[in-house]
């Protein structure tokens, strides 16, 4: 039995204005698994992701890598769980690519050489080493997305949490990004509308709607259930339409 990396039991969360975003949600994720989180707009996917490194704290129980989330474990958890936000302009806040990728490692207290090394490795992993000295705002959307990924890879996380990794990308950049994500051999949680991406990268799918977990299962099992998908504003992935 592989190690349980994320354990969520009965999680509920309401936004400060009273909107209930997540209702009694339970989910387990095991080591080296890739889980796709799908669901219509406003289903609570992003809110769920924000719980995974303690940015939001709902009621009830989350354990990550056998640690409770509290103020003491927070720095460690943020190192272990790499969270990439949907909009690269939120993710990249330093003037230059290098400094952005170095931000996490520097906060972890690494030495200068270690930081330098981590930055280079991370950028190499996403094929962006050429842009190391460039200002972030001069990158294209595809490059920004990849650098965003590098900003958490440089922290060597054990769990990678991605929010809409393929949005705003042209088909080629999207394919490149999928290949990059596939190459990474760590536990992954990916929230997305891009079901083809899920089909290629993930082994398991979790379907959320209105903050509730509607279905969970193997990718093909869920994706073959057209009724279920269409009931929640989704559709069968293009790649599967062609074969059926």
């Amino acid at each position, binding site marked *: 039995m592989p190690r349980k990396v994320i354990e969520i039991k009965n999680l509920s969360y309401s936004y400060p204005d009273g909107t209930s975003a997540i209702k009694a949600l339970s989910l387990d994720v095991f080591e080296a698994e890739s889980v796709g989180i799908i669901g219509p707009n406003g289903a609570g996917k992003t809110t769920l992701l*924000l719980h995974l*490194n303690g*940015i939001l704290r709902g009621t009830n129980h989350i354990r990550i890598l056998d640690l409770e989330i509290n103020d003491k474990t927070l*720095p460690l958890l*943020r*190192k272990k769980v790499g*969270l990439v*936000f949907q*909009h690269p*302009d*939120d*993710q*990249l*806040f*330093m*003037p*230059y690519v290098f*400094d952005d990728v*170095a*931000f*996490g490692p*520097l*906060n*972890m207290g690494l030495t*200068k050489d270690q*930081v*330098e090394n981590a930055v280079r490795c991370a950028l190499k992993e996403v094929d962006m080493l050429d842009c190391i*000295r460039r*200002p*972030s*705002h*001069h990158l294209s959307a595809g490059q920004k997305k990849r650098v965003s990924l590098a*900003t*958490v890879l440089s*922290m060597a996380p054990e769990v990678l949490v991605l929010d809409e990794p393929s949005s705003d990308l042209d088909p080629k950049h999207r394919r490149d990004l999928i290949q990059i994500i596939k190459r990474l051999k760590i536990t992954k949680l990916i929230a997305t509308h891009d079901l083809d991406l899920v089909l290629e990268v993930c082994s398991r799918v979790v379907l959320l709607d209105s903050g509730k977990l509607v279905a969970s299962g193997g990718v093909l099992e869920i994706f073959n259930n057209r009724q279920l998908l269409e009931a929640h504003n989704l559709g069968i992935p293009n790649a599967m339409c062609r074969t059926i």
Partner: protein
Amino acid sequence: MEHSYIDEYSHINSFIHNLEPRIKIFTFFVFIIIVIFTRPGSAFAFSLYGVLIFILILLSNIPIMLILKRSLAVIPFVLFMSIFVIFLKAGRPFWEFPSRVFKLTITYEGLTMFVNIVMKAYLCILCMLLLIVSTNFLNLLKAFEKLRIPAVLIMVISFMYRYLFILEDELMMMKRAKNSRTVGGSGWFHTKVLSNMLGVLFVRAYERAEDVYLAMCARGFDGQIKTIYDYKIGIKDFVFLAVIISAVSIIKIFKG
């Protein structure tokens, strides 16, 4: 959308570029102070300062036209602020407005003062431009941080550098979206729409700030920005500092 960015020439390899940023800041600071304290009317001293700056610009391999063009952008502000001096300073009249009701006199002293202010301002602008254009922006900020400028200020400037262009893009895109739906309407109506757009822009910037903060926290931010500073002060930096400051001082003492 593409923007010109202020340290576009900071990657060039030249003597000026390779100087330690702290030394550069300090040297230019002293230069500016000495220029400001030079006696008005000492035209020879001002031209010597000018020659010195142009030598430095040449040493930096930065296209001289670029610096001149950018310096022009600041000149209107200087002129606007100093134009009143020619009327305000008392002294020998140079020209009088021919009317008894409106008394308006330009004096020789006022004119000297005006030329003096414009000259000094322009020399200072050239100095600062050379500093900014020849230094990588982040290294410049780091150098200021090392010189004990409060870290919060540095952080604010660094975010401004990063997000100014994004805000500009957003405003442009909103304007485009508005223009493509604009058919007629009075000028007053458009002014009102513009103020609404600015409001939306503010709200967006505010919410983005929150998201950015979350993204920073997610990567272990603890209230202090940590950066790598690679520069070390070497002999050539001290030589530069000594040569420039003594040159400026000599000009000041003998001609200013």
